[in-house]
């Protein structure tokens, strides 16, 4: 006999494998905390959004020197004001998108659709992280450039550099920038890799035959 038919026969006749729970036992379950992947995903995403906001604002709060410098820059350049407005606009946009896609995750969809909406939510965070990495990279490069060319103390120092020394300085700065970005990227890979491993595997398995 077919293995599954045998299983089916048993499946339907045995209803008492697990003790029946009473309403009283079910009731408190409704208010327990969920430990679902999506919830974790959402919490981590929110934490990320705030992390980047904090990273951007901490130097402003802590260092008075930096604040003064920044105020000076802002007073002179409308460009910087616009950049700030745009960057906060982008953060708000991401928060909106994340919230919207989180809301669209519905357990009552079919399994494939559900997985797709979870992965879509994840993608939004991925773009946000990517955006931040690019901005961080550009800022680093500009920062270095600005320091070399406009900071009087540094400029005086490197004035006597030979071509070789100058080259080395550039290499070190580049390596440092790349390292910084790679470390952050790895960190994200780790968090989401662990969280979404099973989901990714199941998603692939589901669509395996449909090309």
């Amino acid at each position: 006999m077919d293995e599954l038919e045998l299983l089916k026969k048993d499946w339907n006749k045995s209803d008492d494998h697990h003790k029946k729970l009473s309403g009283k036992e079910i009731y408190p379950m409704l208010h327990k905390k969920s430990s679902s992947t999506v919830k974790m995903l959402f919490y981590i995403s929110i934490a990320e959004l705030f992390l980047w906001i904090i990273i951007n604002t901490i130097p402003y709060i802590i260092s008075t020197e930096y604040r003064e410098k920044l105020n000076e820059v802002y007073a002179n350049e409308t460009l910087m004001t616009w950049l700030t407005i745009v960057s906060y606009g982008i953060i708000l946009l991401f928060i909106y998108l994340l919230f919207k896609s989180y809301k669209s995750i519905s357990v009552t969809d079919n399994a494939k659709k559900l997985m797709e909406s979870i992965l879509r939510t994840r993608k939004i965070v991925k773009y946000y992280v990517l955006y931040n990495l690019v901005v961080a990279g550009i800022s680093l490069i500009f920062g270095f450039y600005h320091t070399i060319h406009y900071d009087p103390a540094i400029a005086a120092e490197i004035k006597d550099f030979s071509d070789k020394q100058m080259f080395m300085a550039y290499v070190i700065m580049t390596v440092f920038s790349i390292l910084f970005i790679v470390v952050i990227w790895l960190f994200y890979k780790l968090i989401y890799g662990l969280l979404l491993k099973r989901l990714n595997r199941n998603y692939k398995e589901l669509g395996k035959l449909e090309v």
Partner: protein
Amino acid sequence: MKKEEEQRFVALLEEHQNIVHKVCRLYTNNYEAHNDLFQEITIQLWKAYPKFRGDSKFSTWMYRVGLNTSITLYRKSKRRISTQDFDNVAFKIKTETYDDTEEQQLKALYAAVRNNLNDIEKALVFLYLEDKDYKEISDTLGISEVNARVKMNRIKTKLRTLLNP
């Protein structure tokens, strides 16, 4: 209002709880894990309950939420100390003396389903055991009927080779 809805939901779940237990039976292999998954499915059902409009049967709706939770949302709890449960051991012994009795055969079957099939395959087996046709299976999982059929045949072959080495 909320209180009433809670009572109504609990009554419904109490009546149909067997479906959730059955899902847990395929996806977990010990008592602790079973209860954890039951708990998580209950939360997901309750969260989705406001969206349940009664246009499908409560039981059908439960299949979806139960399987979706098992396949996509559920994070296996860390406090499960041993995944090497008694069924696993039983499976090893039973395969040697496979022809003994139907009961032993069944035990080996359950063990094979739990330990050797992936999450998607378990969902297919579950729906198959619940006597769903391929239309409903493909609707629930979001795949084509052809895909569902091919997968089902593969599962059958897989189980056959597992149990008749």
